């Protein structure tokens, strides 16, 4: 299999030259300087490496870059629009959800995927969807609160 030479990331085509068996996480971080997604466990258990591929959250530490093809990748760096944060980023700031925040990018990408699929999630739905993301510092309650806040902001906040 030949090297991967282009990826569609955050709305633009990016060139690279990566062996296809390398992880998407390492290509994003080391080749494209998109370091928002983090290594946490290497086995898809902690969610720190979560990015979206065609809107679906995936564990980029376990995804070979050769499997991506023309699909559209969204990373934490691609959420801001014209200097405006995604409602979930904004909500997390308002709630003060993080301490060390190493988990933040993965949490946000998972949360964005949830809101994309289900704009009005109930608390049990949030817990079920987010259960693969580990935070070691803060209680998870504030992230749940922020997802609810972002959902309500998206519903009525921006008219």
């Amino acid at each position, binding site marked *: 299999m030949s090297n991967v030479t282009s990826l569609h990331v955050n709305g633009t085509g990016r060139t690279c030259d990566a062996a296809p068996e390398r992880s998407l996480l390492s290509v994003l971080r080391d080749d494209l300087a998109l370091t928002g997604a983090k290594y946490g466990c290497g086995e898809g258990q902690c969610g720190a490496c979560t990015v979206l591929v065609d809107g679906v959250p995936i564990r980029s530490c376990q995804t070979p870059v050769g499997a991506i093809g023309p699909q559209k990748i969204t990373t934490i760096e691609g959420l801001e629009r014209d200097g405006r944060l995604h409602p979930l980023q904004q909500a997390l700031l308002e709630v003060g959800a993080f*301490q*060390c925040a190493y988990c933040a990018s993965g949490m946000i990408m998972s949360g964005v995927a949830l809101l994309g699929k289900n704009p009005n999630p109930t608390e049990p739905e949030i*817990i079920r969807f987010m259960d693969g993301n580990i935070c070691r510092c803060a209680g998870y309650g504030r992230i749940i609160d922020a997802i609810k806040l972002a959902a309500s902001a998206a519903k009525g906040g921006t008219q």
Partner: protein
Amino acid sequence: MKAGKSSAERVTVQTIDRPATERPWAVAAPWSRREFVKAFTGGMAVLWLVDLPRARAAQAESGSSGRRGGQRRPTALAAWLHIAADGTVTLFSGKAEVGQNVRTSLTACVAEELATPLASIRAVLADTSLVPYDAGTFGSRSTPDMVPQIRRVAATAREALVDLAAKKWSVGRDTLSAADGKIRHATSNRAIGYGELTRGEKFVLDVSDSVRLKPATDWKVLGTSVRKVDARRYVTGQHAYAVDISRPGMLHGRVLRPAAFGATLASLDASGAEAMRGVTVVRDGNFVGVTAATEHVAAQAVAALRAEWKTAPQVSERDLFAHLRSTARNAPAADASDPTTPGASRQTYTVAYIAHTPLEPRAAVAEWQGEQLTVWTGSQRPFGVHGELVQAFRLPDKSVRVIVPDTGSGYGGKHSGEAAVEAARLARAAGKPVKLVWTREEEFTWAYFRPAGVIDIASSVAADGRLMRWEYHNYNSGGAGLRALYDVPDRKEEYHGAQSPLRQGSYRALASTANHFARETHIDELARSLKLDPVEFRLKNLRDPRARAVLEAAARAFGWGQSTRRDGRGDGRGIGIALGFEKAGYVATCAEVAIDKATGKVRVVRVVESFECGAILNPDHLKNQIEGCIVQGLGGALFEAIRFENGHILNPRFSQYRVPRFSDTPAIQVVLLDRKDLTSAGAGEAPIVGIAPAVGNAIFDASGIRLRSLPLVPNGLKV
């Protein structure tokens, strides 16, 4: 730059990530007042000086034992503040930000006392070439030690600025006020910015210990929920942790780990790895590592190494507690009291080793320029890592620079500099900068653990519920939190060090978690044996008014009196309480559990925790710390345990070592008691000590089953 002659002779570490203009002195971090004054280039600087003979002597291995009698004038810099001509205020401290929000609290201290907007203040932390020496960020010491001093530093600057304005305008200083980064003279409606007042001058002041600090009741910034500094950078993925640092030409490293703890390398065949393109294999004694252009190739190269290791048999988990007892120092003679005496009780409690599992594993980027070494790494002890590097490579102090970017947490687990030393070895051999990120498996195996321990308690209570005797022995887990808050006429509380089969070290609240688990479980047992309410029993034996206050506050908020206690009738719900004191903070924790009788699954459904640590600096951040302590503490309470056998860790992955997740999180209510009349204590540790005993006591309440080992229910409750 107006560097003095002797300063210019010294080596200047290249400033890599910050322009030199941000350093108002000309050389690598000055550690003494004399050096500082020589190198200072302009503006106003306020220095906090300490007598640091022991710490610095230890660091430099100078052999001089410091104190030679008499009161010495402090000369070592411990922190300082700079006001530049443009009004920018910069604080320099050796503390490290690891998620506890010390960057925010120190910034707020400056804003409060200097009367300047938060946005005008920058805190430079944990860069050994930019900040003064600091022993490290641990033990909840930043708040009691650094906070009051930074406040004095800022207040000294404020008073000096008032003096300058009074002189400039020839007015009385009591007609002036400081606010929003300006000194104002209300009667003449004049105002002048701090930067303008110091422009073109060099003021170097020492902190005045007599300077007036604002009382907590007058605080406008401290005591309020200031948001995390730089929070936006974290939610946009912009903050660069150590793992995110990249250098031109940088390679990726990987280390070959021994087959077991203590193993020595018998033979190595590196030919397969060396044949791989761009791979360098580094061997130095038992250390074997590789560098390669990508992480992937580095991992393949390590996998291609053929090594034989010499191992020796080691203690396994099944023999752990007997081993700790048999190797204990100054172990007491067998308890001679008669256990059949009415009111007498004797029990043993145990705690397992657990891992910190900071989400950012140990990581470092090392870069050599000749004999100059710069290392970026996540750490709670930047100068400790600095010392390790100086020692490992036999370099002069000033040839090593350790930069600690705000770090992906530590919980007491990042006191050591393994990754930094390894990355530096690899970088030196490869002749290029090297990044080394420990895998999760390495972090689980080759870091250090919270100590396991055995605790024996022998006690007796009078029929009226008064504690009469309390004899307490902790084997191996540690002495923190050893002493009970309760009043007992006949008491003995001892810690006995032992030989730990695993490498052990600090963990949030140290042994206080183990000691509170044993003590507060035992107290619950005594209360139940006397058929006394656990809150009532504690209050009966407790005079300390602050302890009584948190206990009563938690019980009230929880609805303790109104809750129906089940007393082991086994309908699946139960409640428990625990009281604690650690690092000058008082805590009481109430928990409610629900047990699924069919599966034995224990769920903590509700926690109320009250906390009092003096005057609160930031209510929301304090609340966040407490919530985090409760959730993290649930892991060690319910299911976390490091499994090990003969020098191997058996569960070094998140798929095998369970940590709390969203679905484990109870409803949490935090009750803060703000004592503005008392000094602020650190709050990163104390709030974790009560959750395990509260949950254990609740499980007993629900099921009648008394659990005396942590974790309580790694495989569910056998009902």
